């Protein structure tokens, strides 16, 4: 346990369009932890990740991530400084479709490489060899010159992980990194992700309980925007998960229960 935690949330509340998306009294995550976040659709999983990555400021409360306070929207330069240390693997397979796998991996070095080299994508030789090593690590070196939109879903996710290796972040946020993958590819991507996070804190949103032991030591269950449980992975059993995913009128969000029909039709920003 290090003296300053990697992430600290205190009385955080996040609301949009009259609906409470997330309400967390206290949450601390230490450096090097492996966390999985589970919960039903709209439980606030993605909202939590967006809060942590500084995409979304909280309506109320204090958030500290890697020493940056995110309670107020960060100025651009600070936000970029945070993102350099923060690796993200997103649901939508976020790659630049028209660039090759290698160039996509090299994007991970943009925090270090600045000026004309980063504009012309003429990266220094040591960064290029590092990118190739990263591609080697995920087994995609033969596809280094292939354009990202010609790769399969699993390969793209591996490129995103190679980009993480390139970036070398202290905190990795992964939002359902295996959502579009078949089971064997999903397991492989999870293993690579954990390997990439060897020296970082890893927070993953997962749906598939089978992947929990691969990805996490600690599991946080979210229900209706609140933490339902926060347990070591060994203590999470089927019953707890079933409870988490079961619709539960008694614990319905007080604001949304007033008029569930309108809130259902509302576009909910940041819900998975």
């Amino acid at each position, binding site marked *: 346990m290090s003296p300053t935690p990697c992430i600290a949330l205190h009385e955080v509340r996040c609301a949009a369009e009259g609906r409470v998306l997330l309400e967390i009294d206290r949450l601390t995550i230490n450096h090097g932890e492996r966390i999985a976040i589970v919960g039903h659709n709209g439980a606030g999983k993605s909202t939590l990740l967006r809060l942590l990555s500084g995409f979304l400021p909280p309506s109320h409360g204090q958030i500290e991530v890697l020493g940056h306070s995110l309670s107020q929207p960060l100025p651009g330069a600070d936000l970029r400084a945070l*993102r*350099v240390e923060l*690796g993200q693997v997103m649901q939508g397979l976020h790659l630049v479709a028209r660039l090759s796998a290698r160039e*996509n991996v090299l*994007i991970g070095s*943009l925090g270090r490489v600045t000026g004309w080299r980063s504009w*012309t*994508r003429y990266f220094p030789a040591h960064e290029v060899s590092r990118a190739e090593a990263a591609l080697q690590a995920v087994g995609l070196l033969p596809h280094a010159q292939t354009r990202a939109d010609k790769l399969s879903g699993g390969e793209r996710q591996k490129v995103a992980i190679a980009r993480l290796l390139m970036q070398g972040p202290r905190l990795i946020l992964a939002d359902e990194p295996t959502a579009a993958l078949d089971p064997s590819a999903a397991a492989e991507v999870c293993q690579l992700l954990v390997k990439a996070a060897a020296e970082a804190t890893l927070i993953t949103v997962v749906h598939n309980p089978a992947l929990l032991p691969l990805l996490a030591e600690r599991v946080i269950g979210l229900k209706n925007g609140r933490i339902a449980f926060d347990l070591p992975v060994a203590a999470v059993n089927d019953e707890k998960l079933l409870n988490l995913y079961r619709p539960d009128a008694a614990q319905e969000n007080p604001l949304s229960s007033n008029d569930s029909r309108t809130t259902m039709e509302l576009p909910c920003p940041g819900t998975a």
Partner: protein
Amino acid sequence: MRLASVLSDRALGPFSGRLGFLGLALIYLVLIAACLGSLAQEGELSLGRNPIANLLKTAGEFARPSFLDVWFGNPNLEYRSDDGILLRAENRQTVEMDYLAGLGRATWTTIRIATLGSLLGALLALPLAVLTARNLAAPKLLAWLAKGVLDVARSIHTLVFGLVLVGIVGLGPTAGILAIGLHSMGTYGKLFAEAIESLDMAAIDAVRSVGAGPVQVFFNAVWPSVLPQFVSSHLYIWEFNIRDSTILGLIGAGGLGLLITEATSLFQWGRLSTVLLVVIALVVSFDALSRRIRMALA
């Protein structure tokens, strides 16, 4: 879904639904009848006195393009007056050879007009496209102004621009270049704006997520996804402009159009046929080339 259909019902008013389509079809039929009927009443629907004979005569001359004379022409064609005095003798082969050389120069002029005009149009359109692209959210007033300029440019024909410009900058290729540039600016602006609007936001997020600054985001995400579309539209309109600039000679901008005017006003269908063959070859080969490049970029 329901909201959208309600809105579109309201917007289309009486023209929605099956009855509405029938109504539209009826209006269209009435319009056609009005066009045909009024032309017939004014006696403007005639095909001339002997269309078939004229067609055969013209087609016959077309079928013998003048460039064949370079090999098959009479080397000593004599022009005599009615009483048999020799007025002039010419070598058809050298005459047509010279004509071909002129044709080559005119083709080069046409290519120059189209190429420079297209580049001018593209450069003029770029800032306007940035202003009109909806996802970049430029100030409303500027966006409207830019859209207005593009719409006006697109709706005025190159030929009309050319006629006006010949009056301003005089006869010659400059007028042609400016005319092509101003008209195609409208089309470029529309296509460029669409390319910007279809920007891959996931790519931008990907680059942003590693802490890249705005300039880095531009060069690593925006540029690679927009550039191929820009190049592809550029080639497409360039090709279109090669075709368009062949007509600009009609108004004195030079190039192939000048030869077309000359040949038509002298009823030299053989020469017109030669010029048109060059135009076709030019357009077809440029089309093949640009399609190759566009496919390589896709």
